[in-house]
């Protein structure tokens, strides 16, 4: 399935740990357009779970999480929402 996803931007955060994995992913996604897809590459196992969860909490769509190596995950997130308004 992941192979079908058209990726607009890739962010390599290997070497980064939480919460900076999400902080950096979020900053990158903020600069992208609605509907665009960000591929996030991480080697930090907790991030492979936390980043998708945090993205969904902020209203973004996690399309897929693909483990490509013992310590490498690719997270595909589609920007569905601009910043939360209160």
């Amino acid at each position: 399935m992941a192979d079908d996803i058209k990726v607009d931007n890739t962010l390599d955060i290997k070497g980064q740990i939480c919460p900076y994995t999400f902080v950096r992913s979020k900053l990158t996604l903020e600069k992208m357009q609605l509907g665009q897809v960000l591929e996030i590459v991480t080697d930090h196992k907790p991030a492979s779970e936390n980043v998708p969860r945090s993205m969904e909490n902020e209203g973004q769509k996690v399309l897929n999480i693909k483990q490509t190596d013992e310590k490498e995950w690719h997270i595909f997130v589609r920007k569905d929402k601009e910043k939360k308004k209160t």
Partner: protein
Amino acid sequence: MEFTEDQILRYSRHILLPEVGGDGQEKILNAKVALVGAGGLGSPVGYYLAAAGVGTIGVIDNDRVEISNLQRQIAHNTNRLGVYKADSAKETYETLNHDVNVITHKERLTSQNIKNIIKDYDIVVDGSDNFPTRYLVNDACVMLKKTLVSAAVFRFEGQVMSIFPGDGPCYRCLFEIPPPPGMVPSCQEAGILGVVTGVIGTIQATEVIKVILGIGHPLKGSLLLWNALDMSFRRVKVPRNKECPMCGEHPTIKELIDYEQFCSMSH
């Protein structure tokens, strides 16, 4: 803007918040806030605004640090006795965060200089300790349409209100004119529990950050009262006064007023 590596780390706990994010942090970095007074209230306001990354902080104060200030005025310290409070605060805030530029105004605010001093700031924070300044700041902010976060403390109590000229009441809607000299205990007679200024000042800082970000519900049209001994908060609705001499339908105050000082000790 692109954040530096240090900024990503420094502001990460802000960026994580859905209501803030990178663009919210950028607004904070671009904000310009003036503090009237670097005393009990101004100290913690400036401290948290500096920590938050408010890019430009104006500190308006012409007093020097005295040892009796240090029980509550946390921007200063024992090594700074005799130093201008504005300079001391600048040192404290810029050391905490190099992203912050503190502009010092070592002047006493008057009807003659206030507009020129506050005109380049987005938000004004009143942490003054006397009624003449409080009314002068209110009136100047209404005239220049500057958002004002006003507060006062007394013994074990404090109050905060945010003023959005043209949109909600101003300080004079609440208290039309200052009390006559002698009616209220002056600051040296009254005493103040030091930490009360910290609680109220940090509430002011919270209001400033909310206004910068455009989130939540500021204290517009409501006065927050806090009592330390009861540990109680009350929020009192304050309507706009149509008869307000400053922002009512037929304002009678057209020029700024220098009221007589009645806290003789401080200056």
